[in-house]
């Protein structure tokens, strides 16, 4: 049986949930996401409480440019779709295509991360808006930075899965891992939807 798990090809419809280990991972990870919801809620709450505490530093209206944020949003949303494609091919048992779409996801994720870093650098250099400038700046960088760190971790995770399994192919042992990683990636997107709405759009409007 153990060998079965490492055999690639010929997988059932939901390979991620075909084994007990897979089902455990699947559930455990969803629950983890439930906890992450509260984690981000705490950060959002903190941010909302401090969003006007700019002291002498720049305010959200002075800082945020929506063009860049729009671009970042579209990139991240698209990467969510591409990772759906990857899972689609996983379920169809097409390892190569899955890797391909994961690759595209990674590239998009990297682009997002790059833009975010550019954005931060821009704020620091052109607006003197550093981490310690005001309570608002601290809350902003912490919330958005936490999301960024999640993106970075997600990228590292997906890349290491791709590399690790490049030769092994898809099997019952690693299918849940791919699946769970893609859930993580979607969750990052969920958080970003609220970030662009609550931080950027509301930051410009209110």
């Amino acid at each position, binding site marked *: 049986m153990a060998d079965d798990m490492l055999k690639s090809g010929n997988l*059932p*419809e939901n390979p991620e949930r075909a084994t007990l280990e897979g089902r455990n991972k699947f559930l455990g990870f969803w629950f983890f996401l439930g906890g992450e919801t509260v984690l981000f809620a705490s950060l959002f709450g903190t941010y909302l409480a401090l969003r006007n505490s700019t002291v002498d530093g720049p305010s959200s209206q002075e800082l945020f440019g929506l063009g860049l944020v729009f671009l970042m949003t579209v990139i991240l949303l698209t990467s969510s779709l591409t990772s759906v494609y990857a899972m689609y091919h996983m379920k169809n048992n097409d390892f190569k295509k899955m890797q391909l779409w994961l690759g595209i996801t990674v590239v998009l994720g990297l682009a997002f991360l790059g833009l975010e870093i550019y954005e931060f650098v821009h704020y620091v250099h052109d607006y003197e808006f550093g981490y310690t400038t005001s309570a608002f700046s601290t809350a902003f960088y912490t919330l958005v930075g936490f999301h960024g760190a999640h993106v970075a971790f997600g990228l590292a995770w997906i890349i290491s899965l791709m590399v690790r399994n490049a030769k092994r192919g898809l099997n019952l042992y690693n299918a849940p891992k791919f699946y769970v990683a893609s859930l993580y990636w979607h969750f990052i997107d969920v958080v970003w939807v609220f970030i662009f709405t609550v931080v950027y759009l509301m930051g410009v409007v209110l």
Partner: protein
Amino acid sequence: MVNTNSSNQKKHFYKKKHRDQMKHQVLTFAMMIAFTIIAFGLAMADVSPMFTVPIILILAAVQVLFQLYYFMHMNEEGHQWPSVMIYSGIFAAFLTILALTTIVWW
């Protein structure tokens, strides 16, 4: 324990089912992009925040539901427990945000 020898027919059926699902998902994606554009548009347009803010929050909520139900497959069977936990999380999250936006003063 694992049924690995599914027949080709069955496989064909899966593939078709998956393709159908995929269509939904592309549609979902299109909607999400549309919502995003509306939200950004509203924010950039000169509309009263009293109007804009609730709308963009609702758009965000709907987008998130799309993500959860279509991209993360919460609409499929076997997701009762994930739903329970996510909604419990949302409940706790809601309370947290409510408190931090209302009873911390100034």
